[in-house]
C-alpha cells in the first residue's frame, strides 16, 4: 500500500479561538491538579474569562481581516465561514457573561460527592470549599459549543456534541440548594442525552452507508447523483434529526428541558438556554441546509409539523407552570419552535437563503442575550433556602424592587415580541423569511408557510399570556408579608443585567447595525 502518511495541515490562525478555549480548559484542569485549594479560584476566574474574551477578540480579528477560508479547514473537519464566525461570537459573548454569573457566590455545591444533608456536606460548607472544577468544565462545554456548529462532517459534529454535552451533564448536578432535584436533573439529562447521541450516531452511520462519506459536501454530492428515496438516507436523516432536535428541545423531544432547567444551578441554566441553543441551531442548519439541502422537499414537511408542535407545546404548557425556571424552559421550547420556522424557510436562490439565515442569526443573538439577562435576575430573588423560584413568591416584587422587576418585565416583553424590544424584530425577521419562502414560485410548501406563521403568531399570543401573568404578579399584586429577599447583586451580575438590557433596548429601537452584521455573516452562506 501507500507507505507515506500525509502530514495533516492545521490552519492555526483560523482555528485560534477554538484552540484558545480548549487550551485554557486544559490549563484549568492542570490548575485543579497542582494549585492549592485556596489559590484555585483566583487562577480559574481570570483564566476562564480571559480565554473567552481572547477568543472573542480573535473572532473579531478574523471578521475585520475578512479573508475567510473558502474551503473547510483542519483536513476538512471544520468549516469556518461567515455564519460560523457570527455564531462563535454570540456563543463567546454569552458564555463569558454566564461565567460572570457562575462566579457569584452560593450557586454551586461545596462538596458534590457528599450525601445531601450529611455532616460531610455541612463540614465542607463550613470550611468554605468550592468546586473550582466548574470553570474548566464550563470551558470544555463552550469549546464543544464552538465545534458543534462549525463541524464539516458528521463525525466531527458528533465529537463536538459530546464535548459540549458531557460537561453540562455534570454541571447540572452541582446546585448548592435542592441538591436532590439537581442530581435528578443531571441524571435525566444524561440518560436522555445519551439516547439522543445514540440516535445521532446511528443516523450518521446510515447516511455514511448511503453516501460513503460523512462530510456534508460529500453527502450533498451523493444525493445529487444517487437515488433520493433510499431507505438508508431517509432513516439516516430522520435519526440525525432526532438527535439534533433533542438538543434544541423541539417537541416531541422536549421533555428534558423543564426538569433540567429547573434543577440545574441557574447560571448553568442560563448557559444552556443561550449557548447550547445557539450552537445546536447552528449545527441543525449545517446538517439540514448543507448536508441535506437537496432533500429539502422531503424534510420540510416533517419539520413543519415539528415546528408547529414545538411552538404550541411550549406556549400552551408554559401556562400551567408555577416555577419561574420551568416557565422559562417552556418559553425556550416555544422559541426553539420559532427558530425552526426559520430553518424551514429555504429558498431556491442563495440570496433568499441568506435572508433566512440572517433572520436566524439575528434571532439567536437577541434571544440569547435576553435569556441570560432574565436568568441573571432569577438568581437575585432569594429565599432563605435558596432562590425563590415559585411564582407565588414573585407577587408584589414590583413594589419591593421596582427597577429589578421593571427590567425583568422588559425581558419578558422582549420574549413576547412586543414592538420596541429586540424580540419583536427577531420574530418579524423570521416570519418574513418564512412567508417569503412560501411565496417563491414552485415552493414545495407554498401557502403552508404562511399557515405556519399563523400558527406562530397564535403561539406568540398564547405565550404572551404567561409572560404577562408574571408581570401581573410582580406589579399588580400585593407583596406577601414574608416575601423573598432581593440579594445585593455582585458587580458581575450587575454587568450581565445591564449589558443584556442595553442590547435588548438598543436593538429594539435601532436593529439596523446588528441586522447588517448578521447580513454580512449570512451573505457568504455556509461553505459547501
Amino acid at each position, binding site marked *: 500500500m501507500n507507505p507515506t502518511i500525509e502530514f495533516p495541515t492545521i490552519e492555526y490562525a483560523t482555528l485560534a479561538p477554538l484552540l484558545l478555549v480548549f487550551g485554557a480548559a486544559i490549563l484549568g484542569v492542570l490548575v485543579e491538579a497542582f494549585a492549592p485549594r485556596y489559590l484555585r479560584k483566583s487562577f480559574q476566574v481570570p483564566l476562564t474569562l480571559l480565554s473567552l474574551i481572547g477568543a472573542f477578540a480573535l473572532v473579531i480579528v478574523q471578521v475585520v481581516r475578512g479573508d475567510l477560508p473558502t474551503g473547510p479547514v483542519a483536513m476538512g473537519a471544520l468549516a469556518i465561514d461567515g455564519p460560523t464566525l457570527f455564531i462563535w461570537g454570540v456563543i463567546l459573548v454569552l458564555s463569558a457573561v454566564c461565567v460572570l454569573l457562575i462566579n457569584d457566590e452560593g450557586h454551586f455545591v461545596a462538596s458534590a460527592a457528599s450525601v445531601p444533608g450529611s455532616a460531610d456536606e455541612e463540614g465542607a460548607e463550613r470550611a468554605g470549599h468550592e468546586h473550582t472544577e466548574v470553570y474548566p468544565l464550563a470551558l470544555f462545554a463552550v469549546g464543544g459549543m464552538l465545534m458543534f456548529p462549525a463541524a464539516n462532517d458528521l463525525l466531527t459534529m458528533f465529537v463536538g456534541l459530546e464535548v459540549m454535552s458531557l460537561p453540562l451533564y455534570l454541571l447540572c448536578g452541582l446546585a448548592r440548594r435542592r441538591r436532590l432535584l439537581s442530581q435528578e436533573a443531571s441524571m435525566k439529562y444524561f440518560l436522555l442525552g445519551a439516547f439522543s447521541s445514540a440516535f445521532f450516531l446511528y443516523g450518521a452511520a446510515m447516511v455514511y452507508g448511503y453516501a460513503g462519506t460523512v462530510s456534508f459536501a460529500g453527502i450533498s454530492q451523493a444525493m445529487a447523483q444517487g437515488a433520493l428515496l433510499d431507505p438508508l438516507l431517509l432513516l439516516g436523516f430522520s435519526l440525525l434529526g432526532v438527535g439534533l432536535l433533542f438538543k434544541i428541545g423541539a417537541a416531541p423531544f422536549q421533555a428534558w428541558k423543564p426538569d433540567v432547567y429547573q434543577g440545574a444551578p441557574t447560571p448553568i441554566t442560563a448557559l444552556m438556554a443561550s449557548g447550547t441553543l445557539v450552537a445546536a441551531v447552528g449545527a441543525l442548519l449545517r446538517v439540514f441546509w448543507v448536508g441535506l439541502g437537496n432533500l429539502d422537499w422531503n424534510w420540510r414537511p416533517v419539520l413543519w409539523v415539528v415546528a408547529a408542535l414545538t411552538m404550541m407545546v411550549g406556549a400552551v404548557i408554559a401556562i400551567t407552570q408555577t416555577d419561574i425556571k420551568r416557565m422559562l424552559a417552556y418559553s425556550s421550547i416555544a422559541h426553539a419552535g420559532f427558530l425552526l420556522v426559520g430553518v424551514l424557510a429555504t429558498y431556491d436562490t442563495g440570496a433568499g437563503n441568506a435572508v433566512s439565515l440572517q433572520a436566524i442569526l439575528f434571532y439567536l443573538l437577541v434571544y440569547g442575550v435576553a435569556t441570560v439577562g432574565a436568568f441573571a435576575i432569577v438568581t437575585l430573588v432569594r429565599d432563605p433556602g435558596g432562590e425563590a423560584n415559585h411564582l407565588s413568591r414573585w407577587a408584589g416584587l414590583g413594589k419591593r424592587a421596582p427597577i429589578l422587576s421593571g427590567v425583568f418585565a422588559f425581558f419578558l416583553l422582549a420574549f413576547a415580541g412586543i414592538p420596541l424590544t429586540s424580540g419583536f424584530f427577531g420574530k418579524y425577521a423570521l416570519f418574513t423569511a418564512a412567508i417569503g419562502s412560501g411565496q417563491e414560485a414552485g415552493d414545495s410548501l407554498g401557502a403552508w408557510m*404562511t399557515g405556519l406563521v399563523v400558527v406562530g403568531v397564535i403561539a406568540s*399570543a398564547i405565550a404572551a399570556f404567561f409572560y404577562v401573568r408574571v408581570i401581573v404578579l410582580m406589579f399588580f399584586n400585593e407583596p406577601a408579608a414574608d416575601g423573598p429577599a432581593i440579594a445585593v447583586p455582585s458587580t458581575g451580575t450587575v454587568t450581565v443585567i445591564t449589558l443584556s438590557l442595553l442590547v435588548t433596548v438598543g436593538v429594539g429601537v435601532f436593529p*439596523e447595525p446588528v*441586522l447588517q452584521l448578521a447580513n454580512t455573516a449570512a451573505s457568504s452562506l455556509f461553505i459547501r
Partner: protein
Amino acid sequence: MSSLWLPILMAVPVLGAIVVALLPKGSTTLAKQVTLLVSLVVLALTLVMAFQFPNAAGERFKFEATYDWIPSFGVHFGVGVDGIALVLIALSAVLVPIVVLASWHDADGVKAADGTVVAPKRSVKTYFSLLLVLEAMMIGVFAATDVFLFYVFFEAMLIPMYFMIGSYGGAQRSYAAVKFLLYSLFGGLLMLVAVIGLYVVAGQGTFMFPELVGAIQDPATQKWLFAGFFIAFAIKAPLWPVHTWLPDAAAQAPAGAAVLLVGVLDKVGTFGMLRFCLELFPDAAKAFTTPIIVLAVISIIYGAIVAIGQTDMKRLIAYTSISHFGFIVMGVFAMSQVAQAGAALYMVNHGFATGALFLAAGFLIARRGSPHIADYGGVQKVTPVLAGFFLVAGLAGLSLPGLSSFVSEFMVMIGTYSSEAFGSGALAAAAIVSALAVILAAVYILWMVQRALNGPTAEPVKAFKDLNAREVWVLAPLVALIIGFGFFPKPLLDVINPAVTSTLVNVQVHNPGVAEKGAGQ
C-alpha cells in the same frame, strides 16, 4: 423636504416622560405640574400646526418627514398627516391635558364606600410618565405614513395603557388589564402576518404607505390581507362580537385612562379601517362590505340594548361606545363622501362627548366610591354644577341636535342611506335600522340621568361637595367644544373632506359626492 413638526410633537412628550420619571422621590406635585405643562405645550404646538395645515406644503400628506429607520426591512420613520389624522392628533392633544387634570388624584388609591381599599396608593410619577409616553405614541400612530411604523405604535401603545389599567384601576384591574392586552395583542399579531404578507407580496421593498397603495392587485391575496388588518382593527374599535374586553377595561381603568382608551386608542381601529383596509385593499373592502355593515348594525343595536341593562355607570358608557363605534364603522364602509366624512367627524366628537361623560361619571364615582347607578339619586339638588355637566355630556352621548355628535351621526346615517356605492337598498336598510339606536340612546342616557341625578336624594349623596375649580376646568373645555362644534362643525369638516376624497379616489368608488365637491371648488 421634510418638516420637523411631527417629530418634535412626538419628542416633547417623550422627553417630558423621562423628566417626570427622573424627578426625585416624593415630588408628586411637581410631577403632576410638569406633566400638565408638557401636555399643554404639546397642545399649543398641535394647534399652531393645525392652523398652518391648509397652507402647508404637500398634496395629501402634509408636514411630511421621512428618515430611514431599518433599511434591511425597508422600514422608515415616516410621518405626515392628512386631514383625518390631523383632527385625531388634535383630539389626543386636547384630551391629554384634560386627563392630566382629571387624574390629579388617581394614583392616590381607591377606597370603596365602606372604607376598604380597592386599589392601594401607587407611584404618581410612573402614572404620569406613562401618560406622556402614551401621548407620544398616540400622535405617532396617527401620523405614521409607514405601515410598519404604524404597526409598531399600534402594538407598543398597549403597554403603557396596560400598566395604567393594571396598576391604577379598580378592584378587577388585573383581570381587565390582561383581557385588554391579550385581545389587542392577538389582533395585532394577526395583523403582523398581514403586514409581512403585504410587504412580501407587494415586493416593493418598502413599507411607505403611498407606495403600497394599489400594489396588491390579486383579489384573493387582497382578501386575506384585508382580513388580517380588519380583525385587528375590529378588536381595537371594538366591533361586535370581539368587543367584550372594552366594558371590563373601561370600567376598571381610572376615569382618565378610560377617556384615552375609549376616546383615542379605540379610534386607531376605525382610523386604520379607513386608512389601511380601504386604501390598500379596495377590492376586498368592497367585497366584504355587506358582512361588515351587518356587524356594524349589530354593534349599534346590541351596544345600545346592553347599555340599557347596565347597573355600572362606566360599563354603561362603554357599551354606548360600542354602539357609537358601530356608527363609525358603518360610515367608513358606506363608501360615500358624506358618510365617511361623518365617520371621521364622529371619531372626534365621540372623543369629546364620551370623554366628558366618563370624566363626569368619574367625579361622581370619586365622591361616593361606587360605580353603581343604584347608589345615587338626587345628585342634582346637592351638586347642581356636576349634575349639569353630566347632563350635557349625556345629551351629547345621545346625539341631541345642537351638540356635536348629532352632526356626525346625522351625516353617517344620511350618507349611508343615500350612498350609491353599491346601487342597492341594503345600505338604506342598514341606515334605517340603525336609526332605531337613536331611540335606544335616549333610553339609556335619560334613564341613567333619571336614576342618578333626579329623584329623592340618597343619604350618602347629601354629603357631596360640588365640583372644585380643577374639576370645572376639566369639564368646561369639553362641553364648550361639544356645543361649539355642534353649531359650527365647518372647520373640522373642511380639514376632513379632502382626505376623505382622496381615500375614495384610491378606493375607486363611483361617488357623486366627490364630483359635486370638485365642481363647487
